[in-house]
């Protein structure tokens, strides 16, 4: 398909050309240069992908095109942005307004906050039409909106016209957003991470929808994402950004086949694929170590509901008869989309939530309904690493105190000097420096914070480490490092991981066994490679299908297995 569409037709001028764009925020000392010297062009009917990690300037670039910054940001835009031959940078606000929505329109990341909560969805789309086409007949507008809804595959489009945003699911909201953007048949559609807030499976539907819609409405598309694989599966051309600058720009093929920039190369490497070889079996990983083969953790028929009071029998269950078991030294991955109950399971096992019924047997101790005394003996053996390292470290404690808090609480050590010594040891174990101990968490990057969180959990030498999506909130480029760190620690210490993820490709690379969950139920469980490579359930198949296809060109040049090569910093 890419071969038929030449990315840079030399004759016709491009629809949009951005030259030497730079954007600065604020004034004086507080000035922040967000984007500098960015150039790219978008041809008619072409799809351009914009990739980069968080904060790299993707959104700023896209908003700069029609100057959509809030007034308070005090944005200063330099360079030239030409749309159909007119310079948008110098264009007065009034003229620009007629281009917004009709010439260039936007789909934003989080459709819940991007839609006005107190107005009906249909009205919001209709407003878009009315702004640009004047006072046309109400009924006519209504009909058009319903028609667009139908074309975008929204069921019961008339009812949706009268719904408020909060009454729709995430995917439906995003379709409304897309309908609003397409209502005036814009020449260019800018989609800023339109799928990031959505579930894996819905995500795929929306990407497919966008791909079709762009073709059907014959518009160009600027697709922004942090997910290189996703962009590559959609775009004709790719722009890679880092720290506000373009580091790589070219045809998708070329960027995939011959990435010139080291960062782009690193991004490629960091993508777990379903094709990569799985992990070595348990017995082979630890030199001299053999698994006892005993179940360290055995969860049987655990059930939990957050809905209390009457109607308990029909209440929606966050966990519905979940069973699994983990042998010593093993990694067991729990996979499932958002809301499937993964975190609830993790919290039940950790003792943060008391499940309604079932049994959790840990190292021979029954944890469901356990007494304080039982917990006293088991407590330190089960630790957890949380998804968001920004929220899992008390911002008002120094790193050294955070890391050794467990030692203090459990009276393993209370001498100052000893604690300090232990802190240094722990920090070094996770690849940080001793001097980091005197800082506060906010002085660290996300990846570093996650290392601190791991050190904190490991201080008590637990037998079971629960990792609840430990890399999901991190940038793509550091994800691999953290995963590698966890694997290395496991190899060295022989502890057991209950690893939670929604990323089936990642699970395939690290898990010994996998459990797939959907709506609080286990739908499939077994050997990781078995479950993931040869799924028997539709749900698992859908999860698998949602992993973006690698461009053909890329597959011809397999890169070394990501995890093995990522090293400690």
């Amino acid at each position, binding site marked *: 398909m890419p071969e038929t569409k030449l990315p840079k037709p030399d004759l016709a001028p491009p629809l949009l050309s951005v030259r030497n764009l730079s954007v600065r925020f604020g004034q004086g000392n507080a000035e922040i240069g967000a984007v500098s010297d960015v150039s790219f062009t978008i041809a008619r009917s072409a799809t351009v992908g914009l990739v980069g990690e968080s*904060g790299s300037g993707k959104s700023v670039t896209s908003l700069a095109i029609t100057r959509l910054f*809030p007034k308070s940001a005090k944005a200063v835009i330099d360079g030239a942005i030409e749309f159909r031959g007119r310079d948008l940078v110098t264009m007065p606000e009034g003229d620009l307004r007629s281009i917004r929505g009709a010439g260039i329109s936007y789909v934003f990341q989080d459709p819940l906050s991007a839609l006005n909560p107190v107005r009906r969805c249909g009205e919001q789309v209709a407003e878009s039409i009315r702004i640009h086409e004047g006072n046309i007949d109400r009924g006519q507008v209504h009909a058009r909106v319903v028609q667009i809804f139908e074309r975008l595959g929204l069921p019961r489009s008339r009812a949706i016209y009268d719904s408020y945003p909060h009454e729709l699911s995430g995917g439906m909201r995003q379709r409304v957003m897309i309908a609003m953007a397409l209502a005036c048949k814009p020449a260019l559609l800018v989609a800023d991470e339109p799928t990031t807030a959505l579930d894996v499976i819905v995500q795929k539907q929306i990407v497919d929808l966008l791909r079709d819609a762009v073709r059907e409405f014959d518009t160009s598309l600027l697709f922004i994402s942090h997910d290189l694989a996703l962009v590559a599966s959609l775009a004709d051309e790719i722009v890679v950004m880092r720290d506000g600058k373009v580091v790589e720009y070219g045809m998708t093929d070329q960027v995939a086949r011959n990435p010139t920039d080291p960062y782009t190369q690193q991004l490629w490497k960091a993508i777990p694929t379903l094709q990569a070889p799985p992990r070595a079996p348990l017995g082979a990983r630890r030199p001299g170590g053999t698994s006892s083969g005993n179940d360290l953790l055995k969860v049987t028929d655990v059930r939990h509901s957050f809905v209390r009071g009457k109607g308990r029998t029909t209440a929606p269950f966050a966990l519905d008869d979940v069973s699994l078991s983990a042998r010593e030294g093993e990694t067991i991955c729990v996979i499932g989309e958002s809301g499937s109950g993964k975190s609830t399971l993790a919290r039940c096992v*950790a003792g943060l939530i008391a499940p309604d019924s079932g049994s959790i047997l840990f190292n021979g101790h029954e944890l469901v309904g356990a007494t304080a005394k039982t917990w006293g003996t088991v*407590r330190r053996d089960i630790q*957890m690493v*949380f998804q968001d390292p920004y*929220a899992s470290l008390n911002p008002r404690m120094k790193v050294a105190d955070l890391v050794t808090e467990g030692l203090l*609480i459990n009276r393993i050590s209370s001498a100052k000097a000893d604690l300090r010594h232990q802190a240094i040891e722990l920090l070094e174990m996770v690849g940080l420096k001793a001097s980091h101990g005197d800082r506060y968490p906010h002085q660290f990057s996300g990846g570093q914070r996650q290392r601190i969180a791991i050190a904190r959990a490991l201080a008590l030498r637990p037998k079971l480490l629960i990792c609840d999506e430990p890399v999901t909130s991190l940038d793509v480029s550091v994800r691999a490092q953290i995963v590698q760190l966890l694997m290395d620690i496991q190899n060295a210490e022989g502890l057991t991981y209950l690893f939670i993820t*929604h990323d089936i490709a990642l699970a395939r690379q690290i898990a010994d066994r996998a459990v797939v969950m959907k709506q609080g139920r286990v739908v499939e469980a077994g050997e990781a490679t078995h479950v993931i490579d040869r799924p028997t359930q539709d749900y698992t198949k859908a999860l698998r299908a949602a992993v973006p296809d690698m461009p053909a060109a890329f597959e011809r040049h397999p890169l070394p297995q990501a995890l093995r090569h990522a090293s400690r910093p």
Partner: protein
Amino acid sequence: MSHATSLPLRPQPQSPSKARPINLRLLIPAGLLGVIVVIACLAPWISPYGPNSQDLSARLLPPLWQAGGSTKHLLGTDDLGRDILTRIMYGARVSLSIGAIAVICRMVSGVLIGLVAGYFGGPLLTFFMRLGDVQLALPTLVLAIGVIAALGPSTSNVILVLAITGWVLYARLVVSQVIVVRRQDYIASAQLLGASHCRIIFKHLLPNIIPSVIVFASLDLGLMMLTEGSLSFLGLGVQPPEPSWGGMAAGGRALISTAWWIATLPGAALVVTVALVNVLGEQLRDRLDPRLDATRSA
């Protein structure tokens, strides 16, 4: 992949220890307030008059700048010939100390209740929140009228009224924050390490909510001083001859057309002091807790 949370366009709230360096906007009101406190403390040594020493032959002298004013009484005298400036200086003691004591009482009780109720939740939380609703159904001044009608007017009853009407606001603030903070993973993480409730409450929850409490308290201080002034003005608070700004204003009200300075000058002192306190509170808010927009009601 998904779920990489993108940065919001709005700048993230500043972390407290990363706060901008102290600047003049904070220093100037703080300095002026300091001057007022010093004057209040040193009043007996600054003024040649006692707060209650009368001089019937020097009644109703106008301030210095008006015809008939005298350098002996810079701001004039009241109907008993007492020096207004002296009484204003002594009045600062009453206003500031009652304000501060009331705020401390409200804050300590409210924060403790809020922490414990918010942390444990359940019936305890329900009980205190319902009690708070009942409490809030009775505006401060209404309850003050009720309680003072029953117990009689006095300084300690004023503080009592201010304390019992105030804990709810602090408790609500703390509960709302505790409920947020409690859900943070670092609380779960501390639980996993085996931390006791006490440790979690005082080591993990309290330090994370204390900035907003301090900001709220600083704004509350101004309100308390106004309320004390109002109660004293109504004759329900500090009793004459003890010089309180509200009481002085009430005493001079009848003479407003003949001796305007008796009623207005003490009130002006209150305005200035409360304005300084409020400016300071605003600055603290900007610095410590930019999101807190506590609604204040009299």
